[in-house]
């Protein structure tokens, strides 16, 4: 009796790799979009001037970081969208 063990192995390796890849990339995207927001301490500098404590906006590096995070997140979702499109292709072309 000939059992196609190679085909079984192929299904295991490919589907495992594809699924783990999509889940991980999507999770990275969700994680980046859901990262804890900046606290007042992180967005403003506390400055002591003549005995009075005032706050001033921190340098724009924090907002740049937030933008980079969003862009990376949406790139992750784009990768997942390509995977979905390829899945649709596999369904339709079959």
């Amino acid at each position, binding site marked *: *009796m000939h059992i196609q063990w190679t085909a079984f192995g192929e299904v*295991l390796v490919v*589907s495992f790799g594809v*699924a*783990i890849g*999509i*889940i991980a990339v999507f999770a990275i*995207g969700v994680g980046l979009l859901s990262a804890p927001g900046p606290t007042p301490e992180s967005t403003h500098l506390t400055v002591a001037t003549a005995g009075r404590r005032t706050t001033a906006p921190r340098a724009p590096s924090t907002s740049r970081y937030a933008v980079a995070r969003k862009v990376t997140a949406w790139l992750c979702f784009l990768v997942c969208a390509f995977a*979905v499109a390829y899945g649709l292709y596999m369904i339709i072309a079959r």
Partner: protein
Amino acid sequence: MGASGAVASGMTPCPLAPGRLADDAWEGLPVETVVVLVVITALLFDFTNGFHDTANAVATSIATGALSPRVAVLLSGALNLVGALLSVKVALTISSGLIDEAKITTTVIFAGLVGAILWNLVTWLIGLPSSSSHALFGGLIGATWVAAGAGAINFHTLVAKVLIPAVLAPVVAGLTALVGTYLAYRITERARQSDVGQGFKVGQVISASMLSLAHGTNDAQKTMGVITLTLITAGVLPQGSPPPLWVILSAGLAIALGTAFGGWRIIRTLGTRITEIHPLQGFAAQTSSASVILVSSHLGFPLSTTQVCSGAIFGAGAGRRLARVHWGLAGQMALAWTLTLPAAAAVGAVAAQVALISTLGTILVALVAIAVAAGIYLLSRRNPVDADSLAQVPADPAAVPTAA
């Protein structure tokens, strides 16, 4: 349903001369009556296939609240219909090489369908997910065995393409979902959990849609194959004909209606009784299932959608630290999966034995099948499960904790 990637090898030409009925069991009945009876039976099977397998695509989405129960089954039904219409190749043989299709007659098809329908209804009544494809294969094997003997059954194909995948499919999907869930929790552990949940709910809607689409493409085509072969056997269509438009539409509509009808009992089992599903786990389970199903289909390797999805939910449950997974239910499901093929075969064999006697025998089989189906429906009304009651069912408290 079941076998997601049935082997694509072209519609098997019918060995019978056009215009001649397959056997003498239908003697005395006009061809049109025979065709209508078998077509209705095939569409009924397609309907049971739909509501039996709704859970595969939507159970975890309903459990996490990503979709409301009614919206979930309507969306899944619509996508099943789209899936049925997407592929016009209809390259599935109705038996995937399990039986010698030259030996298939209208009586064998009818009896096999009766076996599959009744097994689907029994497992639906007790809320156990089982493969509709395996039920169909079992019914056909049993009926063929009675009609043409054991020599008409390819046992090698049975082992290689049904039994071994039945063992491996849930393990592969479960392992994938387990690792995926664990990894996703690690990646998102420092993020705001409420936002993470919302993000994965969106992902769940997409992955559930993919599963529904794949299901419609695979399973509706199997019924199209059954009806087309019946039409060829009865001489209504010439040999080698593709399915007519009305067959494609009716099979697509039957599975879509069945899906939209909502197999709430099995949805409850998969969505709430295995483990308490979080959106991340639902996404991981559905993505793992879709990946395993599509890859195996692409490689021409049949797997049961039901077994893949069930295994993935168990894996997703085990992948979350301190999650409670009801492993006892896995044993019940494994028992149902083990029994599906022989039980459907037994019913198919008995149905064929009686139906092959005469036209009266065939009518008797149809009446008994209707009576049993009605009885199962009445039994189900004693403990009805619907969309409203589904939302009130908590996760099974008997579930035991598992290590992450």
